[in-house]
């Protein structure tokens, strides 16, 4: 632990376990021999060139994509064709997408209460109260009764985060949450994510926001061509990358 903002909430328990996982799209081998353990409360940033399989990897964790070989277990439950397990895991794993994927025909409030009401069977009153709490945490309680189309990109992404949090997930997945945003909106989303990290949430973020990675991440993972190339603490990762591919990638994204 070198910097003061390092995570102290990491406990010894492994919540995500990926062993020798492989995935193909038809003939194309997208993910090759992935091994990854994530402990409770850990914050992981995944980076790598476009098309390297980052999204595919985190989408396998809540089975938006199916893997063909190897093992993925979340909270001790293995992901297979078992629908009950899939449902259980999706309840505990929240996800935010690059393009928010809010439901445009529902208000912000309805977006947030939909899953608690229908999946967790929470009474509507309770669901709305808790949704309001999360909307306050992402700092947009006043937008609760607007439709997503009436909000800016940054606001939409914050709603998306609140929507996931309403399910009380143990783990949050982020797939490039800021890359569809205008520069002035990136900060408001990152602020929310930093705040979330400070509560001890287990997070896996695909992002190229290196500042965020440096301050928040416990581990940075670099992927290329479907493989995990390098994995290290942020300080070491950025200052002293070992693999040639990592060096090249970092020099490209940090050069301007």
């Amino acid at each position, binding site marked *: 632990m070198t910097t003061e903002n390092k995570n102290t909430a990491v406990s010894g328990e492994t919540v995500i376990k990926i062993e020798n996982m492989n995935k193909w799209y038809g003939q194309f081998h997208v993910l090759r021999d992935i091994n990854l353990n994530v402990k409770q409360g850990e914050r992981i940033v995944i980076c790598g060139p476009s098309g390297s399989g980052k999204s595919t990897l985190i*989408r396998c964790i*809540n089975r*938006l994509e199916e893997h063909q070989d190897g093992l993925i277990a979340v909270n001790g439950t293995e992901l297979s064709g078992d629908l009950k397990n899939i*449902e259980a895991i*999706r*309840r505990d*794993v*929240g*996800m935010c*997408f690059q*393009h*928010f*994927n*809010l*439901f*445009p*025909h529902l208000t912000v409030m309805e977006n947030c209460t*939909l*899953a608690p009401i*229908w*999946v967790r069977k929470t009474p509507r009153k309770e669901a709305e109260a808790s949704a309001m709490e999360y909307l306050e945490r992402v700092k947009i309680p006043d937008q609760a009764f607007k*439709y*997503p*189309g*009436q909000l800016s990109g940054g606001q939409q992404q914050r709603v998306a985060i609140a*929507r*996931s949090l309403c*399910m009380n997930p143990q783990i949050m997945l982020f797939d490039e949450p800021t890359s569809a945003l205008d520069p002035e909106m990136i900060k408001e989303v990152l602020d929310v994510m930093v705040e979330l990290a400070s509560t001890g949430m287990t997070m896996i973020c695909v992002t190229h926001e290196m500042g965020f990675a440096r301050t928040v991440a416990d581990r940075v993972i670099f992927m290329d061509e479907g493989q995990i190339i390098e994995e290290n603490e942020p300080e070491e990762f950025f200052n002293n990358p070992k693999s040639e591919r990592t060096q090249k990638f970092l020099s490209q994204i940090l050069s301007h």
Partner: protein
Amino acid sequence: MSKSIAFIRTEDAPSLPPPSSHVGWRKWLWDNMFSSMANFGSIGAAIRSVLIILLTVTLLYFGLTVIWSLIKFALIDAVWSDPDTLKRGICATVAQGGVAEGNVGACWPFIGAKGKLIIYGRYPEMELWRVNALFVGLAVGILWMVWERAPFRRQVGILMLTVFPLAAFILLTGGNVHYSSGTWTTFIALTVIFLGGGLVGARNLLGEVMFALSGFFIVFGMFVAAALIAMFVTSLDLGLVHVETANWGGLLVTLVVAITGIVASLPLGIVLALGRRSKLPLISYLCIGFIEFWRGVPLITVLFMSSVMLPLFLPEGVEFDKLLRALIGVALFSAAYMAEVVRGGLQAIPKGQYEGAMALGLSYPQMTRLIILPQALKIVIPGIVNTFIGLFKDTTLVLIIGLFDLLGTIQSTFTDAGWATPVMSPTGYLVAATMFWAFCFSMSRYSLHLERKLDTGHKR
């Protein structure tokens, strides 16, 4: 003092009206008529201009002639009233044995005399209030749904799709249908088994297998229960006289066929569209086969099939009314078209919506019902209206299998010797064409309006 390139405006340039050749009707005429035909710069351009002038004049002449003869026939030369009830005499020229002088145009008294027939068919005089009540209900319901600022639009829409058809059935036929005790027992048993089993199973009281199947049981059970309720309501004796469908006719039959077709085809079309996109090969191929079969054959062959072959398919002794047989054919036929319209909507929903719903842990039925269908159906409303327009026009085909729709009824009035004159059938066809045109044109405008709104309106 040396010249500087700096420039500062001290006074605003005045805002002037445009040159007179650029305003008013002269500009309009120039832009919209003569600019295309006034280029004589080269030989090619000159030939083109001359051709355009010739074509313009021809079209203008042709168009105006048609419009003028229409006005002349329908208004100027028309016979408007028949005070002495001369019937054919009032619309026949002296040479034809009548009293009219000169050219005779449309024979409006003939339409007046046949008006009731054209709208209601041979529906009993005493019971016409039932049809009128229906027409009023329909008009109110439709206006309500079309008026964008009306409250409870969605609820009214649901009523129009559920309660209204039932009420219409009871009003038009008189209800009091007798179902065999076997039918009653079957439906009650199915309701109890599926709805009861599903509800109890959902509380995990019947073992894990039933718990897993409870969702399916409840959905299916609700369908059976709905059918049971419909059976119960239609079996009530409300004291209404039974009116045979053979007595229905005219606009009534046209509306019944078109509206039943669209209302019945909507749920079927949604199921088929979802099935077509299913990952299970058997289900998707079956749906594709069904859809492509009905879309591949003309409606008239479907009507032939339902009027001739359907009785062969059913057990002996089951008798089906002719109109009902046609309705079944029309519903299956339009379900295939509806399925394609709905599929278009489903395809327009971005993949992210499915992913967002799945990531939140919604199950497939929940995702479909709460996220996908509401958005998809909204996009396809214009498509549904267009399908309805097509169906509305196609209902005329039922006259080929001997049902009397609007067109069929009007044609049947031509056999009335009491009104037989050369202007009788043109008048009748003109009325039919105008009525169909008015319905279809206004609906197509509405669908266009919806399309524009979906295009430009921010997503709400």
